[in-house]
Structure formats: structure tokens, C-alpha cells
């Protein structure tokens, strides 16, 4: 197992290297440069040239790439010119906010999704199954940003139960209850679609397992129904549910971009959108590489977990 993990980690290196090349090329090729973005209407060719020189963007592209890569390998991601602070500080601060939001959403979507899937498989074609299937369909169909806006209108503006946006109260906040209070709406809005997907897949995985002979045997020898479902069937179904959860984790992470915009959550998705609009090259590059690195690691973790769970998968 240990050797397998090491092998997977080594194979991730060329992937990350490829990502650095792609993100660098994209940022180099999109029209509009940082100096134009900073100067706006005042971007005369002369001013643009001077500012680009001040920002160190007048060097040849290949040279800039290797300077960036070399610095990054020593842990120096450079300085964001739109925020005027080190890129890595900003990324770490913003990524922790995203991790809280996406993490809670992921837990919510896994638990609720599996529970809904199991209940609906156990009561196939019953009332609970139909109600869950219908709710899940709505959950999958409504875009999360729209759901988020509607939640704001109802729970924040009309009923005033929850805050509209932000991560902490501006005054007197900053503790855990305050965080949870601000987290309820964005986490639910972000989890909605993923919950639906997990629920549907859990349902079909469970139905598949429930048809197996050993389930019939278990029932025949008098194992209580609850134990058959949750003990025997779900455990086997988890093998096909876990990879879906892995995909949903990525989905929740990328979906966080819209939700962070709608709820003004100070996460990395919102940071990247702002940075792209401002042509903050180093911040975009650093942010993308960081997120991609996390994504790659996460995928390896999912594969490893699957291997641990299912002895048939050879590592």
C-alpha cells in the first residue's frame, strides 16, 4: 500500500508541471495586460510600458515562466499587485475559508445524499421513495447560484433570520456560533445539487446490492431488516458510492465559486474571479496551481480509500 501511495504521488508531479505550463500560457495569451487593467482610461502606450516595466512584465515569456517556476519551488509565489501582498498569504487565508464552506457542504451532501438514497432504495416505489426522488430532481435542476439568491431574499431580506453575506459579523462576531450562523445558507445552497447526485447514485447502488443472493440469505436466516440494509447492503454499496463522493468533492470545490460570489464568502473562488478580471497574473497562476494540487491529492486519497475498502481492487 505504501509503495502504491508513493507511486501515485510521483505520477502527480508531471500533472502539476503540466498545469503550471497551461495556466502560465493562458494568462500570457488572454488579451489585456495588468498595466491596462490598473490604468484604465489612462492607459497610454507610454504609461502602460512604464508600468509593465515596474511590474517586471517586460521580460521574454520563457524567462518569466522559469523565474516564476523557480521561485515557486522555493515557496515564493510572488506578490499580488492588485492586493499588494504576498500571493501565498492570500491563497492560504482564502483557501481556509473555502475549505470550511466546501468541507461542510461535502459532509452535508454525503450524509444527506446517502441517507436519502438508502431510504429510497429500501422503500422502492413507496411514498418515501417517490417524495425523495422528486425532491432530489428539484435539487439537481435548480442552479445553485439561483437557489442562493432565492434563499437570501426569503431568509435574510424578508424573514431576517440569517445574515445576507459574509463569513463573520462585522461587529462582535468571530466565534464559532457566528461562523455557523453565516455558514447555514451558503453551505446548504452549495450542497443541494451534490446531495441530489449522491442520493440518486446511492439509490441505484443499493438496489443493485439488495438484489444479491447474500442479502436474501441474510434475510432468510432472520437477520433484522435494519441490519440487513445498513449492515450488509450499505457496506457493499459504499464501494460504488465512494468514487462518486470523490467526484462530488471536486464539484463542491468548483461550485464554491458561484456560491462565494453570491454570499460574498471570502474564499479562493471569489479571489480567482476578481484576480482574472484585474489581470493579476501571479495571483491567478498561484491560485490555480494551489487548487489543482489539492485536487490531485484529493483524487489520490479517494483511490487509496477505495482500495482499502474493496480488497478486489489491486493496488
Amino acid at each position, binding site marked *: 500500500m505504501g509503495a502504491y501511495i508513493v507511486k501515485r504521488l510521483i505520477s502527480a508531479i508531471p500533472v502539476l508541471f503540466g498545469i503550471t505550463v497551461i495556466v502560465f500560457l493562458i494568462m500570457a495569451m488572454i*488579451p489585456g495586460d495588468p498595466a491596462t487593467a490598473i*490604468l*484604465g482610461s489612462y*492607459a*497610454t502606450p507610454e504609461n502602460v510600458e512604464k508600468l509593465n516595466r*515596474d511590474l517586471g512584465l517586460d521580460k521574454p515569456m520563457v524567462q518569466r515562466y522559469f523565474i516564476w517556476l523557480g521561485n515557486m519551488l522555493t515557496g515564493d509565489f510572488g506578490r499580488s499587485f492588485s492586493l499588494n501582498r504576498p500571493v501565498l498569504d492570500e491563497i492560504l487565508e482564502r483557501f481556509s475559508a473555502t475549505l470550511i464552506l466546501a468541507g461542510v457542504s461535502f459532509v452535508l451532501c454525503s450524509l444527506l445524499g446517502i441517507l436519502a438514497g438508502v431510504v429510497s432504495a429500501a422503500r422502492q416505489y413507496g411514498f418515501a421513495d417517490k417524495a425523495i426522488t422528486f425532491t432530489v430532481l428539484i435539487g439537481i435542476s435548480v442552479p445553485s447560484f439561483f437557489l442562493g439568491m432565492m434563499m437570501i431574499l426569503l431568509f435574510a431580506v424578508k424573514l431576517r433570520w440569517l445574515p*445576507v453575506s459574509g463569513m463573520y459579523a*462585522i*461587529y462582535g462576531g468571530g466565534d464559532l456560533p457566528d461562523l455557523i450562523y453565516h455558514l447555514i445558507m451558503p453551505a446548504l445552497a452549495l450542497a443541494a445539487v451534490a446531495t441530489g447526485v449522491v442520493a440518486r447514485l446511492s439509490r441505484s447502488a443499493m438496489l443493485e446490492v439488495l438484489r444479491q443472493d447474500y442479502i436474501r440469505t441474510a434475510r432468510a436466516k432472520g437477520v433484522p431488516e435494519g441490519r440487513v440494509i445498513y449492515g450488509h447492503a450499505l*457496506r457493499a454499496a459504499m464501494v460504488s458510492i465512494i468514487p462518486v463522493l470523490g467526484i462530488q468533492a471536486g464539484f463542491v470545490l468548483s461550485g464554491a465559486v458561484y456560491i462565494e460570489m453570491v454570499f460574498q464568502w471570502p474564499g479562493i473562488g471569489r479571489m480567482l474571479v476578481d484576480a482574472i478580471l484585474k489581470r493579476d497574473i501571479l495571483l491567478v497562476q498561484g491560485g490555480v496551481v494551489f487548487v489543482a494540487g489539492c485536487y490531485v491529492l484529493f483524487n489520490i486519497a479517494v483511490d487509496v480509500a477505495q482500495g482499502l475498502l474493496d480488497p478486489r481492487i489491486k493496488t
Partner: protein
Amino acid sequence: MSLFRLTRRTVMAAATSFLALGAATLPASAQTPPGVLIVGQIAEPKSLDPAAVTAVNDFRILVNLYEGLVRYKPGTLEVEPQLATGWEISEDGTEYTFTLREGVTFHDGTPFNAEAVKFNFDRMLDESHPFHDTGPFPLAFFFSSVEKTEVVDDMTVKFTLSAPYAPFLSNLAYPTGLMVSPAAVEAGGADFGRSPVGTGPFTFAEWRSNEAVVIEKNADYWGEPAGTEAVVFRPITDANTRVAEMLAGGIDMMVEVPPTALGQFQGESFNVVEQAGPHVWFLILNAKEGPFADKAVRQAANYAINKEAIVNDVLEGTAEVAAGPTPPAFAWAYNEDLDPYPYDPEKAKDLLAQAGAEGAELTFFVTEGGSGMLDPIPMGTAIQADLNAVGFDVSIETYEWNTFLGEVNPGLEGKADMAEMAWMTNDPDTLPYLALRTDAWPDKGGFNSGYYSNPEVDALLEEARTATDQETRAELYKQMQEIVQEDAPWVFVANWKQNAVTSDRVEGFELEPSFLLQLSSVVKN
């Protein structure tokens, strides 16, 4: 087996604690505390170093922390003393001597004096200055005519200009001319922008990234003390969310309300404030080649476009129809006798027929958004429809803002016949000087992307720039506006009225024509 048991327990624990903690905090209302004004901003500031930033969004914070030698007189774009008590201009207009206000100290306790003024300008302009590396200073060219800054005595400072430059005083009143504490720059270096020190009515308290910038009342302020204990600037980049926060009471004030959202703030609990500013929204016409090389066709475009419909229907009354290149907010330099081109499609058709330009095909560059561009896509579509109605054949090409600037600023030749554009400036000199002179064609480093050229206009603008007497300047600008309106190098479309909404707990708030946000006299109940 073990996996699931853990999961079931976690479900219950998580769900229960989530709901319990959520419910426990529910009674906390969105009410903001009295004496603390919470302002919804459109973005996170880049820096709080006035020399390093360019965005109005950042200036809105800065003008409350810092002060300049001069400032705009409230409600106008005229210059009045602030940290200077008076000034003298030499006969030839190249020497400006300022007498400084006594007894002013920076928030860090260091005195404000002539040395401090010199430090500020040398830092921006002198590449060998030890703190020039705290830049870049993108708007330093506002002061590029300053040859040297001298300390005459402790409370007197003298600027020597390379040539007479009349907009110098209004540039000093612009936020780029705000005075920072030399001691704080020396201590903070490049990080000065995150721990700013000025002389203003508020002192800096804290900056929580992407959450808030907090400033507090300066107890030792030399002038009238601030009306609130603290002001919090919250960046809320999404316009819909900003509106929702305002409706829910999470913020007390928001600027740049989307036109379509204004209707939600009718009624007792909100006040909507409006103020016309030095903004003009226009179409650059390519006067070098194609149909618009003919003045009659350019005038036809001005007659063909229904500007009333654009400002009232597309912009919901948040702008007024522009008559010429100079916005009326520059009251002293604005030519009151000019009337906007009326909406007259018949006249436009006649002009087109005389010029033999019926059915002319036009390429029209439209942007998706951008500083001061208002609602560029719906406006562009309305313009396209009006022009097609009189016999043009307009095709639109849409670009994202930075790409758009990259296409338009180098000139329209060979690419397009017209392009949208908008400017907000601080002096009547700036826009025509940078965008209407022959010497401002893109190949000479200016913004005259439509290649308009009229020697008379060039001469008037040069003369106005070197005249130090305001009345003489006003007269020259008025003549310039008349000629430019007749020549029609642009289609003059709209002057934006900035707006803001405050809750009924906010008193004493006015918007300034400069688009800056002066909050010192505001009271929050």
C-alpha cells in the same frame, strides 16, 4: 460495518449541533450599532496608499484618512485650501508657493510641514528617492510637470513646473495628491498601504482582508471632529448581494446602486441621493476613414440616436443627456448655451442622403462593462437600432473591458468605425487634452482614437492649459466646446449621475460631484 456506525452517529451529531447552534444565534439581528457607519463598497481596496491606487472605490476610503494641500470645495469641483492655507502663483505660471497650515500632525504624531510635502512628491516623482520603490505610482504623471519641490521654510513649500500647467491645482485636489506621513512610509516600506497614516478626520483601525476596512474618529483632528465614532467599509462585489444587504439592514449606505434596483428603495426607511459628476459617456467616431470621415455623417449619427430614451429607459434616469465634450459638473467651464443634438431621424436621413452615405456599413466596438461605462451592452444595442433606422448598417463587436481598451486605445483605424467610451476626470482640461487634440493621436501617446483634428481646438486647448486665470480658461473651454460640438468627432450621449442609498438612521450625507465620499460630517443614529 465500522464505517457506517461512525457515519450514523456523525449524521445525528452534526445535524443536531448545526441546528442547535444556528437556532441559538437566530435572535441576533442584522441591526448595525449606532455611531458606527457601515458602507457597502463595490470591491476590496487595492491599497490605502493614495499614491499607489487609481480606483474611485479606494479613493472613497482614502479621502477620510488623508488630506491634500487643497481640496474640492463641497458641492463643487472648485479648489479651496485644506492643508495649505493659501498659495501664490508666479506671473509666468511656473512657480506655485504654498503656505502650510500650522499645528497639523499626522496620526502617528509627527508634524505636517514643508519637509513632509517635499517627501510626498519626491517619493512619487524622483526615481532615485529611497522610497520610490514603495510604488509603482500609476498616476504620478498627474504631476509630471513638477520639476522640483523645495522647502522654503518650515511652513512654506515651492513647486517649480517645467511649463505653465493650469490643471496643477485641481490635480493636487485629486486623491493622488493626498499627503502621507513620511515617518510611516519609512517604517512600513512597501507595506505602508496596509497601515496608512494621514492627517484626516479618521484614523486607520484595521483591515480584515475581504471583510472590512475600519477607520475611527481622530480625537486630535485640527478641524471639525467627525460625526461618527467609526466607519466600516465592507467590500461586496456582487451588486445583487449589496442590494440585499442594504434591504436587510446589514449596511447603512451603499454607492453605485444598479438602476434597476433603485425602485426597491422607495419609501420611508431609505434615502436615495443623486449627484451629477464630471463624467461623459460618448461614442468615438473614426474620422480618419470610412463614412465618419465626413462631418455631415458624424452629425447625422448625433441626430439619429435617441439619447432621451437611453438615459430614461435603459439607464432608468440615472444619467442626463450630454450636450458636448465637457460635463456640466465643471460648472465654471461649461458652456450653458450648448443644447444637445435633438433626436431628429428625418434630419439624419437628409444629411446621409446629401453625403451619399446611405446604407453605410459600420463596425461598432461595444464593451461588456468597465469603469464608468454604465450599461454598455443595452446602450450599444439601442444605439445600433437607432442608427439602422436611419439607414446605417451597424454590426456590433463585443469585448471584455481590458481587451476592449487594448483594441480601442491604440486607435480605431482599420478595425472599427465607432466605439463606446466614458471618462471621469477632475479638470476640464484632462479629457479634451488627452482625447481631442491632433497631438493626442494614439501614435503620439494620446487617446484620440478617432483621429479628430482641428487646429483651432488644438490652439484653444494649449492656451487654456497655460492660462492661470480661471476666467480666461473658462472662456477658452467654452469656445472649444462649441467647435467640437459642431465638428461632432464623437456622439455625445450621457452624463452619469452617481447615486447612493442610505438608511433613515444616517444624517448629513451628501454626494460630491468629484465622486469622492466625504463622511466626516455624517451622523449615524
